[in-house]
């Protein structure tokens, strides 16, 4: 795992250099007619705190007016989300409101997106969560990336944390998201031509989506599920970090725990469901990724727990390691490697390599990162319990917070 992540980070950095060169030498600019039609889907359920900022950002998108529609899928909200959406629908012809009512309402994000898909008129579908504020060029970049390669079935952009400076938790999450995207997304794309749809700020061809039958309403992590299905069909998912969106992350530990447990449960479900593919050796790329996820969520977990246990027993003089080798040095180098790897990712982002982030990162290794162990145990337990008592999964939306004021 250590070697694999080093390898990924190297790929991530090299990809960032490639992106720099690409941006420095842009191709022929397209005329408005040459841009395809795009439907932006924004599922929203009780999002009155954030929806206004999101829609403001959508209206600032740099894309031919007649080639873009923004569909707000208001999913049976009990707050003022519907009224705000109607306000924007009345203000700008690009915005369309779709109000879901029972029995087709409040069945989760996948269901809402499927309803939006039915109403969409564009050739391409772009999805944003209701708390996202994309940069103005984001959609253009996503479309550009898709048009360049017909083998690309979906394009995923980069997301950043809008409330990074709120508290220690959001700082941790900020560092985590930056390093995840430059290491796991960019690194895998650079070396293996694969990445994973993150659930927001991504584009997919509508025809493809219809061919797939839309989103899986049973999946807790519909993005991972969709990624695997796309690979099964032989398409690539391109990571294009020039398309940037800013989203809110949990500001309290309770909200964070709920969100991450859902993610981990969802990913565990996907891994277990698709494990037989490893044996059938279909679609080498995704098999490789499945193996990686299997190792991360199961094998590596056991290794980390054993390693912590051995260290603790060694410190208490209950166990004495007699194997020859520089194990203390390896542990120290692993820690330094962690710091340096993440600092590479932070250095790629212009303003993130700061002294404060360095110390946050140093602390993160022994605090935030270790919580992952608890998350996996918790979600495994919940999965087992759900399987035994045949509990149905319920999709719970993440709590929103008041967004910070935008910079002027």
């Amino acid at each position: 795992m250590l070697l694999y992540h080093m390898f990924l980070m190297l790929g991530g950095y090299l990809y960032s250099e490639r992106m720099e060169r690409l941006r420095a030498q842009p191709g022929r600019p397209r005329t408005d007619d040459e841009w395809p039609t795009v439907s932006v889907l924004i599922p929203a359920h009780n999002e009155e705190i954030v929806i206004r900022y999101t829609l403001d950002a959508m209206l600032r998108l740099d894309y031919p007016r007649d080639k873009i529609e923004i569909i707000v899928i208001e999913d049976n909200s009990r707050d003022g989300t519907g009224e705000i959406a109607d306000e924007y629908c009345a203000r700008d012809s690009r915005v369309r409101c779709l109000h879901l009512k029972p029995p087709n309402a409040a069945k989760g994000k996948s269901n809402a997106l499927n309803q939006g898909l039915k109403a969409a008129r564009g050739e391409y579908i772009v999805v944003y969560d209701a708390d996202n504020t994309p940069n103005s060029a984001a959609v253009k970049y996503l479309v550009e990336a898709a048009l360049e390669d017909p083998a690309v079935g979906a394009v995923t952009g980069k997301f950043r944390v809008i409330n990074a400076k709120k508290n220690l938790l959001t700082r941790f999450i900020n560092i985590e998201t930056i390093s995840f995207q430059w290491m796991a997304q960019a690194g895998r794309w650079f070396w293996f031509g694969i990445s994973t749809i993150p659930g927001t700020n991504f584009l997919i061809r509508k025809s493809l989506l219809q061919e797939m039958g839309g989103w899986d309403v049973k999946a807790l992590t519909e993005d991972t599920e969709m990624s695997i299905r796309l690979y099964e069909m032989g398409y690539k998912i391109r990571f294009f970090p020039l398309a940037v969106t800013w989203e809110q992350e949990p500001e309290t530990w309770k909200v964070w725990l709920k969100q991450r447990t859902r993610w981990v449960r969802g990913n565990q479900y996907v891994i277990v469901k698709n494990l037989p593919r490893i044996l059938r050796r279909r679609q080498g790329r995704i098999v490789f990724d499945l193996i990686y996820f299997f190792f991360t969520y199961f094998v590596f977990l056991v290794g980390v727990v054993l390693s912590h246990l051995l260290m603790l027993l060694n410190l208490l003089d209950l166990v004495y390691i007699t194997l020859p080798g520089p194990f203390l040095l390896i542990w120290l180098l692993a820690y330094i490697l962690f710091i340096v790897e993440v600092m590479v990712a932070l250095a790629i982002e212009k303003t993130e390599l700061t002294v404060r982030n360095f110390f946050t990162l140093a602390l993160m290794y022994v605090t935030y990162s270790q919580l992952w162990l608890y998350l996996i145990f918790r979600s495994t337990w919940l999965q087992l319990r759900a399987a035994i008592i045949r509990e149905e999964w319920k999709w719970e939306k993440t709590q929103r917070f008041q967004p910070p004021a935008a910079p002027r």
Partner: protein
Amino acid sequence: MRADVARFLKPLFPAVLVVAVCCTPIAPGPADAAERTAPGEDGLPETGTGARAEAEGARTVAGKHAENGARAEVDVAQTVGDGHAGTGARAKAEDARTAAGGHAEYGARAEVDVAQTVGDGHAGSGGATPAESLGRDGLTPDVLILYHSPEPPPGAAIMESLLTHFRVTARTAHASALDDGAANDADFIIHFGADPEAAAALARARNVPHMAFLPVPDDGTPAGILIRYRNAEYPAAAVSAARIGIGTGAETIARLSDGRDERPLIARDGNLWLVGADLTHELIRWLVADVLHDFLGEWHPEGAYGLIVIENVSPLTDPDHLRRLADLLGGHRIPFAVAVEPVRRSQAPSERASIAGSPDLADALRYMAEAGGTLVLDGSRIDPEDPEESARRTARDIAALQEIGGHPAALYAADGMAESLAAADERVFFSNVIAYSAFRTDGTRHSGVPYALLRGAGGRAFPESVGAAGGDAAVSSLLARAGALRIVRDALIGVGLDASQPYETAAGLVGQIAREPLYWTDLRYIAWRVETGFLRLSGRGDGTMDAVITDRGRLEELRKRERQTIRFESVTYYSSWTLVLVVAAFIALFMLFIVIAQMRRNRRLFMERELE
């Protein structure tokens, strides 16, 4: 009850002995599975003087014995009543029990395995009756060590160690235990921190030999630098001593001189022995070690014994160098021990090797055995913090030696290590031990014990009393030390020769020590036993030995595991260092990326949030 019987019989023993010696007739001849009925109360066999009775499952009771010069070898013998081996006789028994008067006389040799000697059974002076279960059963003399300080002083522990040279049992108690009758069963009392008058009163009251160590002034003022004892003089590092006031009729046993004045250092007045110095001073310790022979009344043949141990022999040792050492010692007709580390375990794979994969070394060891060497197992790397793992490794070491036909006759290790191995789950038992000490601050390493010690189950401990040679300067100090050790009448001059030292150093030491009048100890002629879960080794003490493989499967498994462990450890070592190098390279590369990214920061593409 048995103890009471023994105490009753003890005073009668000398008389019984005389009667037995005089009245036993000469036996008519050897008997096989002797069940001869002879004149006796119950028609049980006897052998007279010069006779030889070999019996299996023999029982000799009440007065039946092997007389002077006779030889009774019995298997699972039971000799009860007055059964004994007379002077010069040899009674060898396995699981023998000699009760009430049963003993081996002067010069006799009774070797027993799992022996129980009760009543008055003992080995006379010069005899060797190592016996298990030496206890407070009225058979062996009981020595009570008393102290007045809140905690036992260092001298008490030193005294306990010195007393294991003798066939006594020792126990330590605070002086307040006297009120509880602690001294009632004591045959000897040794008293630390005693007031002279109180000690004298106690000696008179108990009427048993009483050695009192007087409190030494702690102002650090030396009282003397020369000890006079038994018509010889011994220079000493400054000795602090208490003044001993002796009356007429008292005898001064040792004197201390400061060059001008002389005063008693050890004095005896009847049952009371007064010692005016501290056992923590090495020469005083040796002096007392010798005086104990007279104090306890136990005769040991006089004459210093020598024991040379070639140390630090492993699969990495040059075999030719070992052959040269063997020739050197063999040329001087000096038997020696070779402490072998059969499996060298080290962090670095280049220093890891097994004797099974070193045929040259195996040949060299055979050569050494023919030159008078006895193999002993080097236990210097036993970890006292992890006795279970140490016992497992020791078992694998023995298995590795067995692979080349080598059998260790003893364990070469620090004090207490043999006990921890014997107590481990993977039990490894050594009856005989060559004991060395940890290195001192001055770089020397030698045991403070000047003579061989008795261990349970017939075993012995041989201290490395002089130390190991480390260079020309060290040779002279070793020889000086050997000379000083002669203050003990039966001192063991234990010397180590480090196999990693140049040949010239060893030659210098051996050449000089060969001139010393010493009885050289040949471990092959001292009975020994080694037991593991898969192998039982025993030396009969006549130069021959038995080896019984009790679990061949386990032996093969241990050999195989050692080979696998060496391979596995090599792989672990090299792969972990490879990982270190790879990770370090990536860290360096990533730091370069960070520097480059920071240098290009101003024109970097991925920037902060757009301004509205």
